[in-house]
């Protein structure tokens, strides 16, 4: 696998066979009668300084993956290693210590900032709870952070409701940066923003990455955005990773039929580019009741008999492009 190409010390994050099932209860006694397989056996690695993009349709488990990495959710199975340390079972103080190294930026800048705290308090909070310095030091640090994300230090005294979406997202980023994390999980961090603002934030994220050597797990459903920010891109479908490759390869030569369809369906702001559009029929099946075999077989234009019964594994094809499809077996 591609982890083999990289020395172990270069690997920041490693997910092995991670699953996250949400129980469905029902019946007279509220027994668990099923599970939403939000994330179903996902493995990947993230190198230091690398950005991994995750794309996929709504409900395919992108956010859940992000939350499992963040340890907001405990995985049902599998292990997560961060910086060489198994953090799957970590909890309490040890976890809190560890948490400083990975931070999250949420999609909705309106709900991710506590409306009753001033911007200063919001940005200072990670420093305060982790006891990073004296009051004055923290104050200075907050002002510095605000400047780093492109806000004036006076913003400290204001409240989130006085800022536009893009500005709020900057505040959220400042807050995430406060603890000098190694990894930032950005879950649809620009989806709620206007295109003009989106560019500001994307540029900011890129600059921060350069400046602080950050790694990102960048979650988005926008293929173009993911392509722009990522080094490698993983495509998810119904809780599974169907393709994972360097972005150049993935976008120029998508292997999985789903990736192909996804790419062909994405509208481009260009006139007269004639593409062979693959319009998939039907809707994404429910993750509570995923199809047998390859989860994509119900919509796949190249479906074969084997797809209906056998689940394809993510395997390397060509030079390190990982794909889970029987076509390439």
């Amino acid at each position: 696998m591609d982890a083999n190409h990289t020395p172990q010390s270069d690997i920041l994050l490693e997910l092995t066979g991670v699953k996250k099932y949400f129980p469905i209860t029902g019946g007279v006694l509220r027994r668990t009668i099923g599970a939403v397989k939000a994330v179903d056996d996902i493995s990947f690695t993230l190198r230091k300084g690398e950005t991994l993009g995750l794309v996929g349709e709504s409900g395919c488990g992108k956010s859940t993956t992000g939350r499992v990495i963040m340890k907001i959710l405990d995985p049902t199975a599998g292990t997560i290693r961060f910086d060489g340390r198994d953090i799957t079972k970590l909890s309490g103080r040890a976890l809190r210590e560890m948490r400083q190294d990975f931070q999250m930026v949420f999609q909705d800048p309106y709900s991710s900032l506590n409306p009753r705290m001033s911007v200063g308090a919001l940005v200072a909070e990670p420093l305060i709870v982790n006891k990073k310095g004296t009051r004055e030091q923290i104050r200075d640090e907050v002002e510095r952070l605000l400047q780093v994300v492109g806000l004036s230090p006076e913003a400290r005294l204001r409240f989130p409701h006085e800022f536009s979406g893009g500005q709020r997202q900057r505040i959220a980023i400042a807050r995430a940066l406060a603890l000098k994390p190694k990894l930032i999980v950005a879950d649809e961090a620009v989806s709620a923003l206007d295109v003009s603002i989106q560019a500001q934030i994307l540029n900011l994220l890129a600059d921060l990455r350069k400046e602080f050597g950050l790694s990102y797990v960048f979650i988005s459903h926008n293929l173009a955005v993911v392509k722009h920010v990522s080094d490698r891109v993983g495509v998810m479908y119904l809780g599974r990773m169907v393709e994972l490759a360097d972005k150049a390869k993935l976008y120029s030569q998508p292997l999985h039929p789903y990736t192909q369809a996804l790419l062909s369906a994405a509208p481009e702001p260009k006139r007269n580019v004639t593409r062979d559009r693959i319009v998939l029929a039907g809707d994404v099946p429910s993750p509570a009741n995923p199809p047998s075999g390859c989860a994509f077989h119900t919509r796949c234009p190249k479906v074969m008999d084997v797809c209906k019964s056998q689940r394809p594994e993510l395997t390397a094809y060509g030079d390190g492009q990982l794909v889970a499809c029987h076509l390439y077996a």
Partner: protein
Amino acid sequence: MSTPLLEVRNLKTHFISRTSRVRAVDGVDFSVERGKVLGIVGESGSGKSMTSLSIMRLVPGPQGQIVDGEILLDGKNLLKLTEREMTNIRGNQIGMIFQEPMTALNPVLKVGEQIGEVLTRHRGMNKAEAKKHAVELLKNVGFPRAEQIVNEYPHQLSGGMRQRAMIAMAMACQPTLLIADEPTTALDVTIQAQVLDLMRELKNRTGTAIILITHDLGVIAEMADDMVVMYGGQVVESGSADSVFEEPLHPYTRALLESIPVIDEERERLTAIPGTVPSAANFPEGCRFADRCSLVESSCREKMPELRELRKGHSVRCTLAV
């Protein structure tokens, strides 16, 4: 060419309260040709939705008021009609679909009833006929199980299905104009492709003209014949989609096109537009884009530029463009 199907002239829709006046739509002009797709793009708050609601005369009152302008449908000024006459036009001559398929359908009524309602209202059908017809309509928008779907409730359908049901409803009376306010924004790309396909197909089949509102330039590029770019409640650029994409005249349109990542090309760094959209309650004097414009000159801040036809059928609201 004959007269356009719809002509909007100097439309002004304001939200007026004791303390403020929000100029949501502030002098908008455009026209829609029969059987063509007009795309309207613009950032959030630029007045796209209010423009479309003004055409339907559904601006949320009592604060929201159409204070000026003309909306001519087939030469008939909609703003002069009585409320009752207007209800005969809504759903009949003009259909409308909205962004959120989750909330745009009434959760407590069956899909079939909601579609049938249009027919009983405008086509004088009885309930049974309307329901039968609803099944047909649903088949037309690609529902295989249409007979069952009519008896289901919106929450039993997926997002894409709901949006298709909305389209079926809006198209029930074969309107001459369909207003689609961000019909695919809430949908996944693969589903968006389905819906756009469907709209295109319906347009070709019925000759219905479409106003397609979106902030996704990609969708416009794919669907629109003509396009309008809105900023701060005004049209800043309008023309055929070909010419606008080929040669964007307004700095805003240009910036917009350059600020988005594109799959087909590698952009090292995006060209961000600094600042934020000005508040509609508090527009600056002069050009509304001036604060964010990289080419701004002092004259820009003094006088509001006119919308000028710079190329044939291609107008722009910028004094600097040549």
